[in-house]
């Protein structure tokens, strides 16, 4: 939980008793009921400056349920209905986060930069650190796209030079050797958290594709020297690992793991 979220949660719990009762009733089994009750509270308090706070809270609940588009609509409404309030700033930060997760970097950075330009030290800090993080994410995402394009171009050129798609069949020995290991990786992914599981699955499937394409190419045109194909293979495996980490949003965790060690 980041600083802005912690402040938001603390402030939400400092509301009036009716508001508090709705907030504290939102257990994981009653999100829809809690949202309906809060909607009633909003409808019963037209023009209330606290309605933006209610909308931000509802958006937070929607996000926890994975309904990002519903959360976006609520946050945009909070921006419209609570201009100049603290809750409009929370809504702006949350909208920036949604844009960032959807790889819409320019609008996310614009929102964060707006927050960084505010006079309040908290929002200056939140905005500037989020903007710096978003810029890093944008650079990593561009590198990921360039890597994927390079891998696709290399694979396509090799398949064409090897004689077309027929050169891919039967699957090469490289893939058959490692298939049991890749299947174990896929099975082990089931026990992980969602982003980590997606990264392991991406690595397993991408690894199978790399082994298939490299094996078919080397079978069709055996190399005289192993140095170049081996170096290219190493580079492709590293690129695959990078893509699996960045695509699934694990880059920051990887940096922390290198700095502090694995948990």
């Amino acid at each position: 939980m980041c600083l802005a979220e912690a402040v938001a949660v603390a402030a939400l719990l400092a509301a009036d008793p009716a508001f508090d009762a709705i907030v504290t009733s939102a257990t994981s089994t009653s999100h829809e009921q809690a949202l309906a009750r809060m909607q009633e509270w909003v409808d019963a308090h037209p023009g209330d400056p606290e309605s933006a706070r209610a909308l931000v809270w509802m958006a937070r609940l929607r996000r926890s349920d994975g309904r990002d588009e519903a959360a976006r609509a609520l946050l945009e409404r909070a921006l419209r209905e609570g201009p100049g309030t603290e809750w409009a700033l929370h809504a702006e930060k949350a909208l920036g986060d949604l844009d960032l997760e959807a790889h819409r970097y320019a609008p996310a950075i614009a929102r964060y930069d707006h927050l960084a330009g505010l006079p309040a030290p908290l929002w200056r800090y939140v905005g500037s650190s989020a903007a710096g993080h978003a810029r890093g994410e944008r650079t990593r995402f561009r590198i990921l796209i360039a890597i994927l394009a390079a891998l696709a171009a290399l694979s396509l050129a090799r398949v064409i030079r090897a004689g077309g798609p027929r050169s891919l069949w039967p699957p090469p020995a490289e893939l058959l050797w490692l298939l049991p290991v890749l299947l174990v990786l896929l099975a082990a992914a089931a026990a992980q958290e969602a982003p980590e599981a997606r990264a392991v699955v991406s690595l397993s499937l991408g690894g199978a594709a790399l082994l298939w394409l490299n094996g078919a190419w080397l079978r069709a045109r055996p190399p005289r020297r192993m140095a170049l194909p081996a170096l290219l293979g190493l580079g492709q495996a590293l690129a695959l690992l990078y893509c699996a980490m960045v695509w699934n949003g694990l880059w920051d965790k990887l940096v922390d793991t290198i700095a502090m060690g694995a948990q």
Partner: protein
Amino acid sequence: MTDSRDERPRILGVRFGVNPNSSSLGVDVTFLLFGGALAVATSIVLGAWLRSRGKKAEQVGQ
């Protein structure tokens, strides 16, 4: 009469090097990701080596 040592709170276990607030990857995920990438790289390198040996053997055979 109970032994006073039994009533004292006891430390049941100690794990060194673990930060409960850490945002690092777990050991198992780190092993799966890096081990998987290493296995893929090793297979490609091994395949290149064996196939280049096969090519040389063919050339010597001619």
